[in-house]
């Protein structure tokens, strides 16, 4: 088997064009997919529940009414809003994958804002099954919250300014339908100054009044809100986000895992299917299995060859990517484990393709044709299709190695969790496709 392996490596070395294509093509595809991912998809679906009643959505600030409902409009320009009627319903829809995210405006948002001592808290829930879309929804919501904040800030600042003027200069203050006459620090100071003049010089009362006048002067000069209040003015609405499903992986990190999975798939499938079919095409198969190599040994040799070569190439690719993207090098051993697991599963699938087609060109065409749909199936985001169809897609993805490889690599690279489960899934696929190939090899020579 060792000699057969060396033979295959030698043949690969003598086919530089094929090897170059085999390495460069998947990497180009991987990079293109990375680019495609970073462009946001159209209007993701977001569940929305507002705890504000119509009256409660109005905040009264300094006698002016601010309607939060107007600000909501701006929040959802770029999102396909699915209105629901409770916070629990939002969470359920996110969990089921019907929507990519959910937003909850709590009942006390308006009152909190009005008290001006605490920011209003907007709650956002994400379905993190699809980091690509999650990143987009996250960005969209963040941008919209910023815009709403800016609008609120301007208005609150205006109110604050008016209040400051009122306290300083005095005037009429409208509150709860009533008019209050506000004296103002400026007039208070002049009244006090006039009063002081009527008191005898050196009297105790006159001295005390002087202190009060100094204070009003100081207060007028230094009128400002407390830090807390200013903080609220700076950011009236805060977002508290929670992930409901899977790990949390940023788009960049996810794209790295995806690129590695795609490359691993292409290289391994092509190598395993092509090299096995070539034994048949070169008519060597009957001679080999005539006591020189066992059927299982031959399959193991091809799978090992394909898995080792593709793992090495993809590891090099990750190291190369590590120069541009922040990767966690401390998890290097886990990268190797995930790559090797994925490679073996793809190799087993490649063997099945090779034994069924029994011809190099047909094998590589089938491997190629199978690759892209598998990758795209695994990437169809929840919420993009009807829930029933999504379940079918999930089931199909589970039968092929791409999705578990992606999960394993995401777990290994990004600490997204679930490496063990993904590896078990891959091991099961190795057994299934391995057994299938072994069976199909019986009619390989015919």
């Amino acid at each position, binding site marked *: 088997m060792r*000699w*057969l392996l060396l*033979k295959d490596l*030698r*043949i690969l070395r*003598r*086919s530089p064009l094929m090897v170059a294509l085999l390495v460069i093509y998947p990497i180009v595809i991987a990079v293109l997919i990375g680019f495609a991912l970073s462009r946001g998809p159209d209007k993701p679906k977001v569940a929305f529940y507002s705890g504000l009643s119509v009256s409660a959505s109005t905040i009264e600030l300094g006698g002016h009414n601010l309607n939060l409902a107007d600000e909501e409009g701006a929040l959802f320009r770029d999102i396909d809003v699915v209105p629901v009627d409770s916070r629990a319903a939002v969470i359920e829809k996110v969990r089921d994958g019907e929507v990519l995210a959910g937003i909850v405006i709590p009942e006390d948002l308006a009152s909190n804002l009005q008290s001006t001592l605490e920011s209003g808290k907007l709650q956002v829930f994400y379905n993190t099954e699809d980091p690509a879309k999650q990143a987009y929804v996250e960005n969209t919501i963040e941008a919209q919250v910023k815009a709403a904040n800016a609008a609120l800030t301007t208005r609150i600042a205006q109110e604050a300014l008016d209040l400051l003027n009122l306290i300083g200069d005095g005037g009429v203050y409208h509150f709860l339908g009533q008019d209050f006459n506000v004296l103002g620090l400026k007039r208070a100071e002049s009244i006090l100054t006039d009063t002081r003049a009527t008191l005898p010089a050196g009297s105790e009362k006159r001295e005390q009044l002087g202190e009060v006048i100094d204070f009003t002067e100081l207060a007028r000069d230094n009128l400002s809100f407390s830090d807390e209040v200013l903080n609220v003015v700076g950011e009236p609405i805060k977002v508290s986000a929670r992930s409901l499903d899977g790990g949390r992986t940023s788009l960049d990190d996810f794209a790295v895992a995806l690129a590695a999975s795609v490359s691993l798939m292409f290289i391994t499938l092509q190598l395993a299917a092509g090299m096995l079919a070539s034994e048949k095409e*070169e*008519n*060597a*198969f*009957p*001679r*080999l299995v*005539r*006591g*020189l*190599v066992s059927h299982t040994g031959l399959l193991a040799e091809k799978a090992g060859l394909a898995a080792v070569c593709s793992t090495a190439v993809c590891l090099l690719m990750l190291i190369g990517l590590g120069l541009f993207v922040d990767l966690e090098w401390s998890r290097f051993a886990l990268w190797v484990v995930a790559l090797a697991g994925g490679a073996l599963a793809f190799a087993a699938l490649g063997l099945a393709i090779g034994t069924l087609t029994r011809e190099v060109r047909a094998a590589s065409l089938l491997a190629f044709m199978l690759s892209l749909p598998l990758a795209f199936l695994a990437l169809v985001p929840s919420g993009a299709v009807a829930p029933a169809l999504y379940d079918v897609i999930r089931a199909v993805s589970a039968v092929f190695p791409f999705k578990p490889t992606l999960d394993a690599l995401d777990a290994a690279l990004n600490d997204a969790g679930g490496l063990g489960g993904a590896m078990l899934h891959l091991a099961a696929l190795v057994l299934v496709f391995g057994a299938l190939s072994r069976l199909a090899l019986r009619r390989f*020579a015919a």
Partner: protein
Amino acid sequence: METLTTTLAARDLVKRYGERLALRGVSLSAGRGELVAVIGPNGAGKTTLLSILAGIQRPDEGMISVEPERIGWVPQQASLYGKLTVEENLMLFARLERTPDPKATVERMLELTDLRNRSGDQVGTLSGGNRQRVNIAIGLLARPEVLLLDEPSTGLDPRQRERLWEFILRLAGEGTTVVYATHHIPEADRYADQLIVLADGERVFDGSPRELEQATGTTGLDFEQAFVEYLRQRGH
């Protein structure tokens, strides 16, 4: 023939492919250094017979006297790696065969096949004749007592054919039993001690070329005509 010790004997071989009977109880025996030609039209069962003798396929019925390990097999289509050189192909199979001294064995085969000056050429660049010689050399690596050749001269020009037969005759002269399939009748006439005629999986004749001529009663016609006549008389 009766003076030769029997090296290879097969009895009542039956092979079915589903409903189809590819071999209907074929027997064969060959002595040391004997040249046996298995002739018959396409689809007669020649390849099936040889691959069963080689141990590639199992017969449904019947028995064979020799272990496949002692039989060299040269398939109809050269089973060689086009991207490897002549020497690398020989070396690979010598190692897979676990021959005691692969280097010396390869040297011997290069000598025997007269391919020393092409040993560094990739097999894919060789002519059909040279490729067939490498193919045969691989069948000989394990120094088999019996060599099976399936249509060895197909696709060769007359000169290559001539050289191939020189080579095979030399092997037989050195004591190797050679069983070859062919549908090229004059070749069988010239290079066989024993003829086995297959038609539709049935052995319809076993004997020397002269005996076949006598059996057809067509002495004087050329051999190919005699053969066709013989099959016609038996309803094939």
